[in-house]
């Protein structure tokens, strides 16, 4: 996707449009090659008008300098009409439009370059069912006019409704393909999960929690943060690994961030840690209550790429490394070397910068800095993103070890196959609410997807 958009460059291989090979060094080149993309996060300018957004970068000119506003407005109107969006006023401000209409504006913008190929990246993820239906009929209409469309979605019902040909991708590789009319949900699911996961599953199935059921470390009651999640209740016990699963972007990540105090406003409900109530407004409140968060983006949230491994790990425990006023270098070195050995972080010395390590080793450093805090509650937010299989296995071993030594773990991942390997229990999230709980051996991807797709399944039936 990013290759086609010109955001990233291929290591090898070639891209052809209409039979001719093209190079796409930047997003502009993608447009002139005839590829238009509607991104999952809309790329509109909220404070500009509908017309200006649709025509941005290709305003019709009158003379050399003047923009031909009349022609511009007419072209925008035509594009919107061709999508059946006659109700959108071209003079309204994009920021004021509801999301579904903004999405149509985005599609009109993509069509304004008259592309040979239109790519839609999960365009339905933020839409309601009626809005989805409308969008699919727009896509149908475009197809009948002869447009070539790539439609990316996690939702089987939409794929069944709209797609001629289906390609299943898994971890960056093509896992399988369905010719027109041959799509089959069970087969597609098997392809999405992949062989390796099946093997892992056969050697290791999820185990139910066997520790002390009364030893609640973290309790969450009626926690709500509009518009991300609502009425969340759960108890987390000593030594338990609780997963937040479901499709991507159903409020799981925001819930973890909220418990860590990253939302100053709008958080309601009750969080109890070790008997104390808290509704954190700042990470320091959560940290001193004994909560650690390993965030999903280690480059901007988890670590300091230009600082040394040592400085990265010690940052959470600076106060306790002090003798008198000064940081005790000896104590710091002992601590850091201990974690480098324990997590087998591959590096030449603890003085090299974090940025010089591989993704997996960077992530281990981020984990190490929180291990140093010896927190009662650890929250892992998609910790294996961009991490190779070996480092992933090592990370999982560390998480299990943490649980075995009495910490309580909250775990969220965008890779559904990870929950069965790690968790004792999972909460399945849909639209910011818990749509079901799975315990021990019930944690099977089929069950997770059933609970995540509940509505879509009814829809199809």
């Amino acid at each position, binding site marked *: 996707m990013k290759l086609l958009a010109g955001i990233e460059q291929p290591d090898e291989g070639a891209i052809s449009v209409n039979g001719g090979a093209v190079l796409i060094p930047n997003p502009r080149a993608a447009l002139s090659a005839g590829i238009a993309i509607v991104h999952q996060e809309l790329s509109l300018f909220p404070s500009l008008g509908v017309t200006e957004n649709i025509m941005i970068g290709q305003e019709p000119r009158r003379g050399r300098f003047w923009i031909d506003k009349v022609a511009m407005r007419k072209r925008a109107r035509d594009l919107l009409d061709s999508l059946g969006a006659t109700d959108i006023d071209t003079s309204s401000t994009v920021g004021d439009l509801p999301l579904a209409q903004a999405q149509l504006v985005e599609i009109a913008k993509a069509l304004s370059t008259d592309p040979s190929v239109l790519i839609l990246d999960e365009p339905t993820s933020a839409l309601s069912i009626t809005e989805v239906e409308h969008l699919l009929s727009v896509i149908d209409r475009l197809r009948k006019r002869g447009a070539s469309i790539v439609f990316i979605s996690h939702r089987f019902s939409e794929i069944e409704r709209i797609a001629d040909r289906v390609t299943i991708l898994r971890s960056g590789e093509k896992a399988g393909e369905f010719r027109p009319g041959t799509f089959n949900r069970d087969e597609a699911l098997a392809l999405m999960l992949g062989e390796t996961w099946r093997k892992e599953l056969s050697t290791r199935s999820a185990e139910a929690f066997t520790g002390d059921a009364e030893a609640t470390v973290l309790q969450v009651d009626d926690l709500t943060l509009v518009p991300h999640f609502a009425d969340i209740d759960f108890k987390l016990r000593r030594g338990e690994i609780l997963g937040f699963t479901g499709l991507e972007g159903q409020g799981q990540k925001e819930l973890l961030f909220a418990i*860590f105090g*990253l939302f100053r406003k709008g958080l309601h409900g009750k969080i109890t840690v070790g008997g104390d109530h808290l509704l954190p407004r700042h*990470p*320091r409140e959560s*940290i001193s209550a004994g909560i650690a*968060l390993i*965030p999903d983006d280690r480059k*901007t*949230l*988890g*670590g*300091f*790429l*230009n*600082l*040394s491994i040592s*400085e990265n790990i*010690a*940052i*959470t425990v*600076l*106060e306790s*490394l*002090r003798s008198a*006023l*000064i*940081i005790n270098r000896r104590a710091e070195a002992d601590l850091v070397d201990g974690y480098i050995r324990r997590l087998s972080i591959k590096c030449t010395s603890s*003085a090299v*910068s974090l940025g010089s390590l591989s993704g997996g080793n960077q992530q281990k450093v981020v984990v190490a*800095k929180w291990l140093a805090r010896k927190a009662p509650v650890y929250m892992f937010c998609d910790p294996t993103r961009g991490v190779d299989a070996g480092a992933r296995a090592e990370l999982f071993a560390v998480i299990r070890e943490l649980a075995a030594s009495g910490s309580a773990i909250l775990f969220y991942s965008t890779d559904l196959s990870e929950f069965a390997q790690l968790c004792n229990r999972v909460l399945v999230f849909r639209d910011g609410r818990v749509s079901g709980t799975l315990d021990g051996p019930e944690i099977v991807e089929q069950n997770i997807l059933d609970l995540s797709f509940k509505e879509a399944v009814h829809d199809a039936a």
Partner: protein
Amino acid sequence: MSLIGGRSSSTNRVLLAYLIVLLVYGCAVGVNREFLAWSTIRLQLVQATFIGLIAIGETFAVLIGQIDLSVPWTITLSAILSTNLAAMGGNQWIAFLVVIAVGVTVGLVNTIGVFVLRVHSLIWTLSVNLLLQGIALVYINAVAPTTHVPAAAQFLALGNVGFMPMAFIVWMIFGGFAILALRVLPFGRSIYAIGNRPTAALLSGVPVGRIHAIVFMSSALGSAFVGLLLSGYSSQAYLGMGTDYLLPPIAAVIIGGTRLAGGEGGYVGSIAGALTVVLLEAVLVALNISEGAQQMVFGAILLFLAFLFLKRGR
């Protein structure tokens, strides 16, 4: 970790800054033999002290990715208020209390604007500078400035200990503390963490607000203290006395190898930067060219140095 501090790239920058000092000093001697005389060197060291003391807080501010432009009128207001109130109160130590009060207040106001209200430090501190200018003008209109400057301020600015100027000794003491604070205190670690990646610092539990407050207070306290020193140096406090101290300290920080975007650098380099700025000015004076030409050449050289260092930062 090397002795000079941190990663090899920033060590190289510091070495380069000291090479530049030597180079500029070589030029100075080439232009005028007077620069070999201790009396001339002594004079330059005192001048560099004023810039160097301000550059302590400015180095901290740039390291966390901010800037403090409220320096000039913090200097002036502190000088006028401290000398006047000390003269009125009849006790010279009142001047030092006033310096601390001005420094803490300006530092807190800057912290509130930059950290709490999230206004860009460039805008906020420059506005605070204007605000302080207004306060100074109002005050001067109401109360005539005193010609009586505390003896302690005069000693700090003009006195000698043996052959060493007292001001330079003060600079080295505060500078030494600044270097140690950045190297061995949790404060220093937090500064580099914030400058490197503010979001990651927040998520690591770094006391981001407290660090901002300390940084802006040390910058304002440095400026306020230099205000008192300058009034001791010229035996008076007057409007506009801080005007020439807006950009030289920032130039010193950048020439000293601290990255303007923050997260990298330190005070060791800023010392070389302060010496460079002062020597450059002195060389241009010694060349005996017109004041306008001096400023043009000075500006061009600073631009060139900034370009050199900003390019290395990429």
